[in-house]
């Protein structure tokens, strides 16, 4: 079975967008008000690239991802998303950007009054797409993340791992150009995290840009055997390319 069958059929990243840099940070700094948390970050994520992001707890991994989907604006420097300066985007532009970027939050939040399957389909709903047309994709995707029999459960009735899997499914349902996942396997056993990794790798092979923040080194090791993944590390407020020490 193809795990990415559920992720739509268009392959936009390999299409019109061509070789344009998807996410680009230039001398970016960020501070929550106290001292600087991130300083002088510069990086370009090419379309179709696969990145891991590591670093000790509290280093700023989640913060970095939030800069990448315009949930936060840099306190210095420039963040360009699909070529547009994040600072100049109005809120509608940010909303449209989010339709092209699938995000898995560290604390997976859902609409607690809607069953899991509607939560996973939510990006389609708010984009005005007809969910009924995508039902086959939706079912395939749920199957792959092992949630078929929980499809009608409400989010508060899910286990920790089930929530994370649902969040990943929601992030990829629109077949977005970019997937940003923050600790998507924190509460998931080894077997299931391999399965989720497979899903991300398939998406990457379709040309999607993937960035996964994780502290699970064995996950990174497993990925490196299958795709060309770069490992970024945040240390002392800077972004480093992690070497062979993994």
């Amino acid at each position, binding site marked *: 079975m193809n795990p990415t069958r559920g992720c739509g059929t268009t392959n936009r990243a390999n299409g019109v967008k061509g070789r344009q840099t998807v996410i680009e940070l230039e001398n970016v700094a960020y501070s929550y008000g106290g001292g600087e948390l991130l300083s002088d970050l510069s990086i370009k994520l090419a379309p179709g690239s696969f990145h891991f992001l590591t670093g000790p707890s509290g280093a700023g991994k989640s913060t970095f991802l939030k800069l990448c989907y315009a949930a936060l604006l840099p306190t210095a420097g420039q963040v360009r998303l699909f070529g547009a300066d994040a600072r100049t985007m109005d*809120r509608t532009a940010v*909303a449209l950007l989010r339709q092209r970027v699938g995000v898995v939050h560290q604390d997976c*939040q*859902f*609409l*607690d*009054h*809607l069953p899991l399957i509607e939560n996973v389909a939510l990006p389609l709903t*708010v984009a005005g797409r007809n969910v009924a047309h995508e039902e086959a994709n939706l079912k395939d995707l749920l199957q792959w993340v092992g949630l078929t029999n929980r499809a009608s459960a409400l989010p508060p009735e899910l286990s920790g791992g089930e929530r994370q899997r649902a969040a990943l499914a929601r992030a990829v349902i*629109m077949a977005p150009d970019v997937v940003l996942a923050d600790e998507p396997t924190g509460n998931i056993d080894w077997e299931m995290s391999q399965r989720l990794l497979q899903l991300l790798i398939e998406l990457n092979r379709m040309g999607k840009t993937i960035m996964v923040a994780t502290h699970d080194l064995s996950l990174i090791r497993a990925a490196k055997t299958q795709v060309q993944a770069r490992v970024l590390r945040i240390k002392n407020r800077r972004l480093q390319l992690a070497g062979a020490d993994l």
Partner: protein
Amino acid sequence: MTDLSGLIQSDAAADRVVPPAGFTVQLTLFSAGAMAFLAVFALALSLAAGRLAVHWGTELARSSTLRISAHAEQMDTQVAAALRVLETTPGVESARALDTTEQQALLEPWFGPGLPIDMLPVPRLIEILETGAGYDAPGLRLRLQGEVPGAVLDDHTRYRRPLVSAAAHLRVLGWLSILLISGTLAAMVTLAANAALAANSQVIGVLRLVGATDAYIARAFVRRFTLRAITGAAVGMMLGLAGIWLLPEGDTANDLLTGFALTGWHWGLPVLIPPLAGATAFLATRAAAARVLRGLA
């Protein structure tokens, strides 16, 4: 960002993204209902007070009496002089000397039916009807003093005038309370909408994360609250009308409470309450949504 067309046009999918129930919803329903209920009563009070003021007013406020005491031989001259003066007084619509029968009727309570009125030095009475604006009583008195020395101007409205003004004030009070009630409704709905939006900040966060625009989110909330306010106000209005309908209906037009029932087309006025409540809720929620969405950005 949100317009009425988006409100009317049903969007079942978008509707579902806002949690359906919760206490803020009940609060909105209830405040709209309570305020509509009170508004119906305030409206009825205002209308009844207005009717009363008009009733008492037309009955008395615009008529007064000129009493002329004179020797029998001078009487007719003086009456004629007084009528002439009155004819040229601005604010006097008409003036007319009462005839003997009318005066007899007026005095009957005092002297019984058999009073030989032309035998007595009874003064002659002239009934004055004022225009809406009324005349200048002290000015008229001065003129009469010169030309008709035996005339005494008695605007016996003095007696009921405070009542008329009380009714008028009551009407003002009624309209003021309608204003107050509308303000309260708007404030309640705004606060309830704010509470709902704040309570649903997670919902807003999730919707934003998956790419919903502010317009989409606002529409879902505004729609819900507007419909709730209309529903609540409709129920409250109905209960209010039922309450008024149940009040005992009196037989005297004078009585405030028994004359409290709505009459004729006035029954149609309360129907305006739900749409007004809806409009209030629409504007209040839209403002609240815009503010909250800006704040959570």
